[in-house]
């Protein structure tokens, strides 16, 4: 099952869970969870693929208050592998409970810092030998970073107030490159036309996709045209 752009799924809360399920399928994970804190609303939004029993237990015992995967990852700019948290008391507490519900204690939490003090976390878990986990981690972590930002941006911009702040702010260079893409030029061509390295073209495209909350370049181009940031090519 392919990952699909969140904004193309029907606009209900269920689309986040659907997205997380597809992340699990594509990246060979058992479970995925997203938690986001939006300072304008002052609450935590959560979407998970865990079963209802665990969700209920987690809420009933207010585990979000002590969950080290969130509280520690909040202080890191890099993904936090849960093995780094093993020694803390809160880890013992939350993960003993999770274990009772049959959930693995091997996983990683990717923190996303947004521009307005908003912060999000994408966690994924997988029950497998350590060696296999390391290999899988190395293989998928870069893509998971992009998935984390994609779901975070979509959750945050679904809030009207924060959405207004989050308008896509493309640089002249980014708009210029998208315009060339719209005109059918390859990345290679664009690098030559603008006399910049091809990797620089890629970096600007990545940035444009994220600013436009798009997973693919064609989606980003479509959206940039729709909001009038570039012409129709």
């Amino acid at each position: 099952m392919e990952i699909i752009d969140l904004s193309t799924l029907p606009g209900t809360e269920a689309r986040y869970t659907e997205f997380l399920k597809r992340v699990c399928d594509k990246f060979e994970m058992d479970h995925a969870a997203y938690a986001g804190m939006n300072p304008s609303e002052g609450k935590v939004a959560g979407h998970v693929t865990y079963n209802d029993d665990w969700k209920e237990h987690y809420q009933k015992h207010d585990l979000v208050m002590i969950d080290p995967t969130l509280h520690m990852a909040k202080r890191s700019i890099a993904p936090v592998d849960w093995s780094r948290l093993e020694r803390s008391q809160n880890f013992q507490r939350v993960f003993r409970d999770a274990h009772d519900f049959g959930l693995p204690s091997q996983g990683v939490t990717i923190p996303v810092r947004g521009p307005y003090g908003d912060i999000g976390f994408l966690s994924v878990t997988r029950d497998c030998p350590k060696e296999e986990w390391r290999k899988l981690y190395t293989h998928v972590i870069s893509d998971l970073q992009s998935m984390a930002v994609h779901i975070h941006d979509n959750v945050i911009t679904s809030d009207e107030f924060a959405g207004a702040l989050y308008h896509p702010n493309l640089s002249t260079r980014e708009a210029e490159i998208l315009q060339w893409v719209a005109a059918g030029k390859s990345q290679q061509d664009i690098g030559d036309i603008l006399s910049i390295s091809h990797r620089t073209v890629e970096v600007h495209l990545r940035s444009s996709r994220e600013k436009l909350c798009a997973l693919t370049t064609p989606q980003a181009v479509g959206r940039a045209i729709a909001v009038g940031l570039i012409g129709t090519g």
Partner: protein
Amino acid sequence: MIIVVDGLNRHLFSEVLDEMFELRARVFGERLGWDVTIEDGKEIDEFDHLDPTYVIGFDDRGNVVAAVRALQTTGPHMLADVFSAILDGEPPIRSATMWESTRFCVDTQRLTRGKGENSLSYATCELMIGSLEYAINAGVQDIITVIDPVMDRVLRRSNCAPYDYVGKTVPMGKVSALAALVDCTEERIASLREFADIQDSVFLEEEEALALFNSKKLVEPSVANRDHKPLTQLEKYFVEQMNAAKTENERQDVLRLIETLSDKFTPEQKTALLGTPRAFAHEA
């Protein structure tokens, strides 16, 4: 050698961070003349309060001789704010797989020329290798780094030339500043390792880093009562006992007593006392 300090382990490394902030004060405040805030000999800004990651390099005596700070480009970072002049009013690049590196510095006073260990070139390469490997492990593909032209030249000469630049070079203090792009790839790491002749892992475990950092306190010769503070009653007592000791056995007894009461002294005081009477000859 390199240690990575972030929000999760910084409580272990407050003294290391202080030494890094002092290095930054010397480099950015004094040498480069940037408009930075220095308090109590330390250069600290608002981004240091956002739990950034620091990659920190030690020389073989445990001195902090190189450092750099990383932040995500999805959230608050310097190019979006205080360095916006470099981007000429354009919005910054925002990417899940790009980090921003700032306050990249090496200790030009302590490090030597040439290419050996404890040289400027070696420390720079080691710091770059550490930063790139840490970034790759986080899934980060590119780093945008704000540097001065001297650091840019050092990178070029170290087999680590940026693959491109963003925005323009702007005057900053006594020099100027620019934003360079560096890819986080195994190829770049390999060429740095080849240039600096570094084969092994550059990273220290937390315990190793602390041991190395703390070891220098014990060997600095001038540490004996460096501040010339008045001696405490207990210190005076031991100095007198040492001076009064006539045989080696008596001397050993005094040393043992100092060991037993270790928790009453700072490591510096203890080192000084154990060197008595020489260390305190002129004070007692």
